């Protein structure tokens, strides 16, 4: 139970750190990368400990996680197009 309390405390601490970061005047992209980075860390902690993924057979991790990361990566491929749209609208 000590382990779960430690994980929970880290999750709350990271959340408060995110709220603090949101009020520092960083450029949007830097802010997004920092917040998403911390959120991925939180998601990792939740999956590894609360969802017991760390204590399951490693084959489950290998089956689920790399494919998910790949699919999410494929979704980001279209993202740069939004910047082009932004430029097009600004100049018109």
């Amino acid at each position, binding site marked *: 139970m000590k382990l779960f309390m430690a994980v*929970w405390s880290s999750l709350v601490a990271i959340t408060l750190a995110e709220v603090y970061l949101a*009020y520092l005047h960083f450029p949007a992209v830097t802010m*997004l990368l920092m917040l998403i980075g911390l959120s991925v860390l939180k998601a990792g902690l939740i*999956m590894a400990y609360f*969802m017991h993924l760390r204590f*399951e057979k490693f084959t489950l991790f290998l089956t689920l996680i790399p494919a998910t990361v790949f699919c999410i990566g494929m*979704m980001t491929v279209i993202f740069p197009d939004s910047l082009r749209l932004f430029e097009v609208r600004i100049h018109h």
Partner: protein
Amino acid sequence: MTETHTEVALDSPWSGGGSPYAMGSKKLGMWLFIISDVMTFTALLMAYSYSRVSNPDWPAHVFPIFPAVIFSTTMTVVLLASSLTMVMAVAAAHRGARGAAVKWLLATMAGGLIFCGLHVTEWFHLIEEGVRLFSNPWGSPLFGAAFFGITGLHMTHVMCGVIYLGVIAWGYGTSRFKDEDVEVSGLYWHFVDLVWMFVFPMIYLMSVKYS
């Protein structure tokens, strides 16, 4: 092939033997559902980010520290706390302590209900300010659709989770369900928590109003 080789092949996790993941089909099914739901939320958050970047009139700094940021931070902590009570419920179920498991499940449901109550109150603050699904006083009308769509789908997941946990608490308390069922419902609940860990920074924290 000798007999020893056959045994080695069946023992390998990739041989498709009796139970390659060493877990019940319910648990594996829940993991597969969770992965498909990850795709749904990722697609929505991706569409939200895309719309936000491509629209110069996107309302980018709209959430004041009170009520929006205070409310959403409290909601995050409440949801995290309900994940901890869910961990307790699963641990109690593994010990076979039915009474304790049901109490922890009820505590988790209470956390979910408090989350939804705070979230609906927060929605009403925005509605009072004139934000609607297809219009808002600040800029791109897509803002309302994206905001209510994503947070609404998440709230639906929380409400479904509260009902799901209620059924599990009833079934486990009356010995109809096994401890595995509590564990599987726990996976779902932690996933709902996990999704909020992305919705909260992307929707709220990226849009705080600097004073």
